[in-house]
């Protein structure tokens, strides 16, 4: 069941009504049933995977919780008779027991993810190597379906178990509540990747019918659909034409494809998250924001703090910090400091960890070399910018333009171009084609063809381009208004006439300009594949 489908709209409408009719203490139970029903529609066999993750994490969490509890009890009962050394030995022993449960849980769940998501990638690479050394390379691919949202719910659930191990909070005792945390349907498709201590504050609570929640939530949903069906699904037609035929569409068309894809991905992903957060809001549940006007970033590093925030912070908290402060990294720090200099000592552990994190981020997005190269390219740009920082400071001390609007606009445009260029790896079929297409922008001078009617052969009419242009202006305006805070709160303070005129205009725009019908395929969200 796609978010952008009539079935889904009926599904959430019925859910909203039942949710506020039934006794409030059963609201979370209804959400669990709805989530499993939603997942059942996606593919009945997927339920086995999500149930396996829930049950294994529940058991590991409870075991870790029990060990932590018995440790606290034992230490308080024997507070006086134990020496500091004895306490430490006891704690270490308990910690290693907890560690074994954590490790088993991580291996099991990341193991499932690895098998379903990456086994065919590994087989393809083995075949490739085998052929290169004269073998047959004949391992056949597994016919295994990728369960919907598995990357998202696995990361979210593993974040939970790591937090329990770290003692950040106690494990959830009710397995059905944990099951809801794992499967909460609005965020199953493409995140955000929530934290248990954050989401559980509202997920299991009783929610009375509140006009503001319903009104704001519905507005957010409508805004999300506008981005998805009016903009993303429309521009997708041109993007698909351009990237599926790289032999024909080179040079100027590669540049158009690159920019269109940046526009499509923004509308698709942020629109999807708007729908998610909006649905949660109608239900009285608070889901973390995943974007902070990312296309206004002035550097790639800043962009990654503002785009897909919950994924970035997941990698930071559960991979980057543990890696960069691990015993191995400390040894590297000590060694480089002693044998080279403090400057390198500071940088090497951070850079090694950064490379590993970006490699993993790439792999998380998809099981292909395109995504791995995409991740490493992001890493490369971030590391180079970091190392060039003294040069930038020197430049700005000589040429005082850093605070001018013109320079900031330049930084924003530069960042958008850079991230769009790196994103080309998302689009083309393999890494060499991507490099070739990027190169063609500078070697194939067919920019005049953009104005000879060729743009009308990409599957979009003049009217479609008009709608897209208007969409771009609206997105830009909303982003600029957002600088002063919530757009909906600002709208709410306007006279009724203006407010309702805007609501209806948006609704009518979706109904009239939504990309439906022949030639359009109401599509799955891009991030759903990750």
């Amino acid at each position, binding site marked *: 069941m796609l978010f952008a489908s009539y079935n889904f709209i009926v599904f959430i409408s019925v859910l909203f009504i039942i949710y506020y009719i039934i006794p409030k203490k059963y609201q979370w139970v209804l959400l669990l049933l709805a989530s499993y029903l939603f997942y059942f529609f996606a593919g009945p066999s997927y339920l086995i995977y999500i149930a396996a993750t829930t049950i294994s994490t529940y058991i590991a969490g409870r075991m870790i919780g029990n060990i932590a509890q018995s440790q606290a009890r034992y230490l308080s009962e024997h507070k006086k008779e134990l020496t*500091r050394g004895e306490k*430490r030995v006891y704690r270490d022993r308990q910690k290693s027991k907890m560690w074994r449960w954590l490790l088993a849980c991580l291996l099991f769940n990341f193991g499932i993810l690895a098998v379903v998501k990456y086994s065919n990638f590994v087989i393809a690479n083995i075949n490739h190597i085998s052929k290169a050394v004269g073998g047959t390379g004949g391992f056949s691919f597994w016919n295994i379906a990728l369960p919907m949202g598995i990357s998202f719910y696995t990361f979210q659930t593993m974040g939970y178990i790591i*937090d329990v191990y*770290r003692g*950040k909070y106690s494990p959830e005792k009710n397995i059905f509540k944990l099951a809801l945390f794992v499967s909460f349907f609005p965020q199953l498709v493409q995140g955000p990747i929530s934290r248990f201590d954050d989401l559980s504050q509202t997920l299991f609570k009783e929610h009375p019918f509140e006009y503001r929640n319903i009104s704001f939530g519905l507005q957010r949903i409508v805004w999300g659909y506008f981005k998805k069906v009016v903009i993303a699904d429309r521009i997708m037609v041109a993007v698909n034409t351009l990237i599926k035929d790289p032999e024909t569409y080179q040079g100027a068309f590669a540049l158009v494809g690159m920019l269109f894809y940046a526009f499509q991905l923004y509308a698709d992903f942020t629109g999807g998250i708007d729908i998610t957060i909006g649905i949660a809001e109608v239900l009285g549940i608070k889901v973390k924001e995943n974007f902070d006007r990312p296309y206004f970033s002035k550097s790639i590093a800043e962009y990654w703090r503002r785009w897909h925030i919950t994924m970035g912070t997941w990698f930071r*908290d*559960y991979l980057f*910090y*543990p890696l*960069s*402060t691990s015993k191995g*990294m*400390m040894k590297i*720090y*000590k060694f480089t400091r002693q044998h080279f200099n*403090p400057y390198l*000592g*500071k*940088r090497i*552990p*951070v850079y090694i960890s950064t490379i590993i994190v970006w490699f993993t981020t790439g792999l998380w997005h998809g099981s292909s070399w395109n995504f791995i190269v995409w991740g490493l390219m992001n890493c490369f740009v971030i590391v180079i910018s970091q190392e060039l920082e003294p040069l930038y400071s020197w430049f700005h001390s000589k040429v005082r333009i850093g605070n001018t609007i013109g320079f900031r606009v330049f930084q924003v445009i530069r960042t958008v171009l850079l991230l769009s260029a790196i994103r080309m790896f998302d689009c083309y079929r393999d890494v060499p084609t991507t490099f070739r297409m990027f190169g063609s922008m500078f070697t194939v001078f067919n920019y005049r063809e953009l104005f000879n009617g060729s743009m009308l052969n990409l599957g979009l009419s003049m009217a479609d381009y008009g709608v897209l242009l208007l969409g771009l202006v609206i997105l830009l305006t909303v982003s600029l208004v957002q600088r002063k805070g919530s757009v909906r709160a600002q709208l709410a303070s306007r006279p009724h006439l203006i407010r309702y005129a805007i609501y209806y205009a948006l609704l009518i725009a979706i109904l009239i300009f939504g990309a439906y019908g022949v030639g359009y395929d109401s599509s799955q969200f891009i991030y759903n594949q990750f």
Partner: protein
Amino acid sequence: MEELLEILEELHPDIDFEECDTLIDENILDSFDIIALISEINLEFGISIPPDEIVPENFNSAQALYQLIERLSDED
């Protein structure tokens, strides 16, 4: 506290660490400094700062950082 101030001053000799309480908020300490600090604290005090303690509140001032070290060594 003396040892901690020495470590911090080695990282940024130009900052008055006894006074400053916006080390993170004003971007005086970057991620390289934080990771280096954690390693130095480990070498000097034998204390491991766990990843979930890497939050601005613990690193904004020398005092906050010292309190974190004391808390972690008490737990030990």
